[in-house]
């Protein structure tokens, strides 16, 4: 055996050793069980079922990371995930204020906040500024409450949106701001006819992990989530719920499988634009992009 082949053998052994250590550490991470806190937010989460839960289950199925879901009040579900290792919370709205408090996997849902009144009300709201003269109902502790207060608006809070729609019906205020899908759900449930005037803001709802969660877990989950968007899995889950609830706003944003773009009327799936500039899009590096995706959401 010459010196060259001895060196080569040593090199191979070192590389193999590193690979094994790496695999072991990944396996160790994957073997841990993560507690995923959630809270009642129908139709996203309702009696331990719902749209968000289905997305989370599919996501973890793809990654083989062990998990358990726990339902608790919203505030506790968030604070526990901030304090306790191997814990996460979903589906919370990602915001600048929360950014440094978690490591993020998302968006698991793209949702919108709308401004509603009773359908019978002849209120005329064209732009957000038109609403400034009115008191606005909003759920306490929600991202919407922060948003409205940030503009110095006069808000009236209730613990749940279910109470807000009742207050709207009782004409205790003329406007209510809520997630458009949740609003639609409660309108159906309470049989109250409401009207959406404007969309205020689009929000990215995410799965937020304790800040000391290993980066590999976050990267793995984000890569799997990206794949779910691109292969149409997310859209499929949304479609399933669209038969039961008015979730058009969430569906608009979620693409069907990238290979079969839809021509949407709203800023929906990749369509015309994709076709037009497909030469640019076709540039190599898709798989590299996928690898980067996890990193980007981890560090970004």
């Amino acid at each position, binding site marked *: 055996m010459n010196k060259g082949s001895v060196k080569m053998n040593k090199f191979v052994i070192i590389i193999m050793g590193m690979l094994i250590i790496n695999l072991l550490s990944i396996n160790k991470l994957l073997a841990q069980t993560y507690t995923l806190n959630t809270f009642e937010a129908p139709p996203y989460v309702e009696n331990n079922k719902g749209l968000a839960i289905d997305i989370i289950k599919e996501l973890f199925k793809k990654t083989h990371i062990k998990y358990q879901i726990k339902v608790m009040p919203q505030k506790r579900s968030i604070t526990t995930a901030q304090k306790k290792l191997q814990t996460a919370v979903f589906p919370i709205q990602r915001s600048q204020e929360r950014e440094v408090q978690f490591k993020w996997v998302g968006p698991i849902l793209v949702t919108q906040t709308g401004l509603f009144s009773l359908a019978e009300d002849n209120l005329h709201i064209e732009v957000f500024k038109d609403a400034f003269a009115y008191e606005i109902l909003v759920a306490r502790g929600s991202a919407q409450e922060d948003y409205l207060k940030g503009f110095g608006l006069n808000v009236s809070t209730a613990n749940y949106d279910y109470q807000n729609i009742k207050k709207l019906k009782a004409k205790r205020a003329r406007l209510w701001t809520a997630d458009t899908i949740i609003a639609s759900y409660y309108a159906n449930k309470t049989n109250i006819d409401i009207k959406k005037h404007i969309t205020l803001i689009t929000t990215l709802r995410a799965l937020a992990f304790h800040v000391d969660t290993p980066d590999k877990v976050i990267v793995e989950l984000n890569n799997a989530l990206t794949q779910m968007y691109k292969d149409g899995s997310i859209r499929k889950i949304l479609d399933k719920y669209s038969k039961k609830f008015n979730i058009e706003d969430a569906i608009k944003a979620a693409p069907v499988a990238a290979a079969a773009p839809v021509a949407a009327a709203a*800023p929906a799936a990749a369509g015309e634009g994709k076709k037009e500039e497909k030469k640019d899009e076709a540039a190599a590096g898709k798989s590299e992009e996928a690898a980067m995706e996890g990193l980007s959401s981890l560090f*970004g």
Partner: protein
Amino acid sequence: MNCLHKQSTFLKLFILCSFLFFTTHTFANNTVIKTWIDTEFQPSTLTKNQQLNEMLWFKKAAFPFIGMEIRVVSERIHTHWYEASVLAKAFREITGINIIHEITGEDDVIKKIDTHIKKDINLYDMYINDSDLIGTHFRSGKVVALSDFMKGVGKEVTLPTLDLKDFMGLSFGTGPDNKLYQLPDQQFANLYWYRADWFSRKDFKNKFRKIYGYELNVPVNWSAYEDIAEFFTFHIKEIDGKKVYGHMDYGKKDPSIGWRFSDAWLSMAGVGDMGLPNGLPVDEWGIRVQDCRPVGASVSRGGAANSPAAVYALSKFDKWLKKYAPPEALKMNFSQAGSVAAQGNIAQQIFWYTAFTTSMIQKGLPVVNKDGTPKWRMAPSPHGAYWEKGMKLGYQDAGSWTMLKSVPLKRRKAAWLYAQFVVSKTVSLKKTIVGLTPIRISDINSEDMTKLAPKLGGLVEFYRSKARLLWTPTGTNVPNYPLLSPAWWKTVPKVIEEGLSAKEAMDELALYLDNRLFELSKMNSQKCAPLLNKKRHPRYWLQQKGSPKPKLKNEKPKGITVEYKESLKIYE
């Protein structure tokens, strides 16, 4: 025959109805346009007739898109609030295209455009996104080159009177390939802010001269800034029975502490190389490029993110925050700190965004005189010990219209019409007066802005001077802004909160940047992808000409101050 007669009558009736509909509609629509011109779009650099013609062009070009609902998003500043509340409404009435213009935090805008690109989720039809991302956009292959769009598929929806040469910040949105990727919608700089009334008090001037040996005036270098900070915090202490401070800043761990650094703090210290807009080959983030490829941020790879100048920049930030600012500033973020100077107990602020001008000139504020003129002024920022003439001196950015390829063409065209509408000459001067974030040379040089200048604390003077050319956004050395920018907020607070030394923090930052550049280097297919230099002993790079620069023997030279008027001229 009878049937034919009936058909002919029907046809005539149809033509008549159509004629009546279109003339009535046109008349009504022209009345709407004239009403907007008369009641809202004044003043303008255009005559009313020119405004009418421009608006009629929009009306005609928008015809195929009538009834569409277009969604755009921008950060939350006065200018965008005006667009979302007033201009979006006007656009709908004039064109029939409904606009949802969402307002949110800048960090959220970046998250959304990043999500849109990475996950192919079409969240918006266009974004008003900081031109800080130009390095990301021109490399990504996902962003439409507007210069191509305007000549190609978007030609028929491109405003003939757009007048690109009139935009001050057009270079900010232009890639190294000379293509325009981002069209400025608003722009603001980060300048030095000070209480001109206090600085002109004879008793203060005499006292300052006695202690420091030179005049209390606009500081040209950081030494003078530091002296003035100490002077007000420790020597003046109180004015009219109220505690005053010689410095204001913020230190809370939050994405906004990152902007405090990535918005060119290191350029002010003198970290980068000579040359505009960002310094070549090393920019103000401390990233070195070879041709257009980033090769490293750490000194050992030829970068300057942990160079002596960078450590000096962080040390000064930390020292001034803890020693001269109000104690509560340590726990504040960007938004919380933004309103403090307006409360009247801050003498100067080295890092102040001109986007806050509107909120600083409101009548009744302690920093505004009874006649509506401000007690304060803005001036060019002082520079650090490592800065040399010919280098970038501060941050200026343009929130710019950005179009993604994945959005369907019809929607892109409709959104492009709105984008051009809110920067058109018909509305831009009025928008400038409302939001004070000028984008057009014609607006800033207008008679109306001359009249307004005394109430704006030096904004007009700065934008009319050549000094503004030294204030630029993040440049193209930064290949992926969303990926790299968290480096700042993840490391800087460790100095403030965890007692890490400035050197340790900048070493960590440089390593973070190098690691991310290494990951990006795997994307060889991307144009101008990073390719890291091999590590060398830092001494090698510190001995080369330019950045990274070796440690200065004296990082606090004598303080230099100048009269306000001189402060603008010295950079010409």
